[in-house]
Structures are given as structure tokens and as C-alpha cells.
């Protein structure tokens, strides 16, 4: 029985990255502080994984100012959404193949 591990996206190996991506797929956009609060992670940890996803071109970053406070918004790109869906499909395949 060959299990299609190779179809899993390397960019989503880290759990936090997959979690970030699921939030950005479910919402048109999300800001840094809300993400941090929702996922319960530290600034640095979140920032480094967001950078990683940005490098893969899975997410877009929008920096703006709310009054004087910097406000950073993230949204998923078409490429990122497709990668996320493919990754979920691969996970589903894994479950199916291990059941049979």
C-alpha cells in the first residue's frame, strides 16, 4: 500500500502555518493582533511563520495605519488557497488509504 505522503505540502508541515492558513481561507482578511489572540501564540513565532507563508506567495501582506497604530492585514492568495485545498485532499487520502 503506497501512502501519498509526497502530496502533503512541505510549507504546511508546521502546525501553526496550517492554522494560519485555515483562518485566512475562512475569512477574506485578518489582522495580526486578532490572529495572535485567536491562535494564542507569541509575536515572534507568528511573525516568522507569516513570513514563511509570504515567501511561498501563499499570503499577501497589507500594511496600513489606524490613526497612529500600525495595522497589518493578511489575506490568502489564489495560489495559497489552492495549496491549502490540495493539502487537505492529501490528508483525506491518507485517512482513506490507512482505513482500507
Amino acid at each position, binding site marked *: 500500500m503506497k501512502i501519498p*505522503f509526497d502530496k502533503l505540502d512541505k510549507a504546511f508541515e508546521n*502546525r501553526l502555518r*496550517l*492554522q494560519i492558513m*485555515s*483562518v485566512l*481561507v*475562512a*475569512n477574506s482578511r*485578518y*489582522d495580526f493582533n*486578532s490572529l495572535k*489572540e*485567536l*491562535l494564542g501564540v507569541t509575536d515572534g513565532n507568528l511573525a516568522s511563520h507569516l513570513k514563511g507563508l509570504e515567501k511561498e506567495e501563499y499570503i499577501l501582506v497589507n500594511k496600513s495605519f489606524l490613526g497612529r497604530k500600525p495595522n497589518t492585514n493578511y489575506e490568502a492568495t489564489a495560489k495559497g488557497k489552492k495549496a491549502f485545498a490540495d493539502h*487537505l485532499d492529501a*490528508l*483525506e487520502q*491518507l*485517512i482513506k488509504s*490507512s*482505513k482500507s
Partner: protein
Amino acid sequence: MKETEIQDELASIRNLMERSSKFISLSGLSGILAGVYALIGAAIAFSLLNYNQVSFTQGDTHFVVSSSTVLSLIGTAMAVLILSVLTGIILSARKAKRKGQSIWSKTSRELLFYMAVPLIAGGLLVIILVLRGYYGIVAPATLIFYGLALVSASHFTFNGIKSLGLCELILGLISAYLPGYGLYFWAIGFGILHIIYGSVMYLKYDR
């Protein structure tokens, strides 16, 4: 990667997608209490009108009531509104704390915004029309705009809110067709429907 691990992963994704886009700490119990307040308020309004010998079942939309009665009616309605909102905030905050969520989050802000738009527009319209003497508009308009507010806010919380909103909307339209029975429709819409939906939500999500 083991199967249970993958199941875990998928469950956490589903949970996050829901938690990030919906405010799920809305308290069902507060819905029940709001319904009870509304019924008590309706009973007070009923006795106020009865005491002043107003027959509000004859289909006349222009009541002749003393201004002191109107003031007591508005006071009653305001008391019901304020008590309901306070109860909703306190109980939802408690539930959010228990679930480890924040009550002032992106989703709760969004929920409030989409609810506030129809409510404020409708509230202002009702005030304007009442000032011009159209008392008959109060019951249907408040029910209809409250229904619209719930439907528009339902994208950010439990699905049950959408059906509650649609019921309020339909009730409002029926009451517009039957002027003079406004108080009864109010008691049904804000009292009984809230108690029913509050109970359903309480049994489904609160425990």
C-alpha cells in the same frame, strides 16, 4: 503521521475556521431572560393601556392616550431593552471567559456592526414616524428591522440566529397587516420567540 494525528489536524482546522469567523460565545440563557423581560414589559404595557381605557384591538392606529401614558410606555420599553442588552453582555462575557475566548474580538465587533446598521436605521425611522403620530408603525417596524439585523448578523454567529431573524421579519409583516394588535405581536416576537430560540441555543451550545 498516524491516522489519529491527521484526524486531530483536520479537527483543529475545522475548529479554527469556525472560531475565526463566528462569535460562538453568544449566550442562549440571555435569550431566554430577554424573552421573559419582554413578556413582563408587555404585561405592564397592557395594564397601562387598559387602565387608561384604550381599546387597542379595534384597528385604530391613532390612539388617544395621555402623554404621561406614552412616557410610561416608552420607559417600559427602554427598561426592557437595557436589561436585555446588559444580560446579553454579562452572560456572553461569562461564557466567553469559560471558553477561553475574548468577548471583544474581531468576530464580535463584526457581529455588532452588522447588527447595528439595520437596528439604528430602523430605530431612527421609528422615532421619526412616532414623532409624526404614526404609532401603528412601532410594532411592525421594530420587528421587521430587528429581524433584518439578526439575519445580517447571522453570518458571524450560530445559524439559528438566521431563522430567528426570518421569523421576526415575517411576524412584523403580518402585524403590519393587522394594525391594532401590535402589543400582541410584540409579546410573541420579543417574548415568546426569544424564549424558544434561547432554550434551543442553550440546550445545543451552552452546556
